[in-house]
């Protein structure tokens, strides 16, 4: 019984503090200026821990702060606000 409670608590804590890694493709991102603009705009989001842009694959990888997430709608808003179009989103915990 004690083991079960410990497991439940551990699972709960993991869920609460886990960060999320989100990959999204960005249409229209073709130059260094584009990539930097997107990177800087994502970095301004309070939920974001780090951002990595891969220009050749047109992919942006966003790591959120522990316990935080970014909704698809929010990611689309940021990408659109940067002047580009969002592609497919893939999430990993």
């Amino acid at each position, binding site marked *: 019984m004690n083991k079960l409670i410990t497991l439940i608590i551990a699972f709960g804590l993991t869920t609460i503090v886990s960060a999320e890694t989100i990959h999204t493709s960005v*249409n*229209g*991102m*073709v*130059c*260094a*200026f*584009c*990539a*930097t*603009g*997107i990177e*800087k*705009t994502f970095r*301004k989001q309070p939920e974001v821990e780090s951002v990595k*842009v*891969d*220009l*050749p694959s*047109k992919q942006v990888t966003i790591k959120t702060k522990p316990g935080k997430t970014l909704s698809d709608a929010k990611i689309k808003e940021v990408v*659109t*606000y*940067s*002047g*580009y*179009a969002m*592609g497919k989103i893939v999430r990993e915990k």
Partner: protein
Amino acid sequence: MKTQTFLNLAFITFASVLVTEGKPLSYVGGTMVMQENDETGHTLSLDYTFTPTEAFGVYIKQEENGKEIFMFTPEINTLLKRWNLPDGQGNIFNMSGAGIATYRGSNQPSLWTAFLADYESRRWFLSYEPRFVWDGNVEKSVWQRARIGFAPYLANYDALNTWIMFQVDHHPAKHDHFVATPLIRFFYKTYLFEVGYGSNQHIMVNWQIQF
């Protein structure tokens, strides 16, 4: 003399931001400094992008290769249309300014507007820009500029990107109506530098920085 003053100003600006064409818009909240030296003269512009489609700033130009007109105008750059494609991006921009043109000690109103249409992929670049200039009773002219570019290799944005480009200018108000300029462009993060040599034997040097 004006040219020297302008070049000094450009150098000071360059030095003050430590380092410094491309598109007339940056990301929202970004500032862009651009300095061009070509067969038409010397240009310095400083713009702040305040919405995803609009930037506001100042445009200063010392004209050469014709009437030596000094222009100082606030400018607004507007993204009229953008196509975001999986492997490329197309844009139509308008850039417009209204201010003062000085020629032989006389100040004249100055109005100009330009449209820039471009398409860029990771490998290819195409652009066309007509520019309409009215400097009071000093000059009325229409310029055209077209470019084609090719990236010989593909690099990430935090590595050096290189473009081989070819530019053609038509400016009837200048001594040299047609100028063809092969050039090389270097991109590194938010720094752009390009150098070329025109058919009228002018060296072209442009730089741009976003911060």
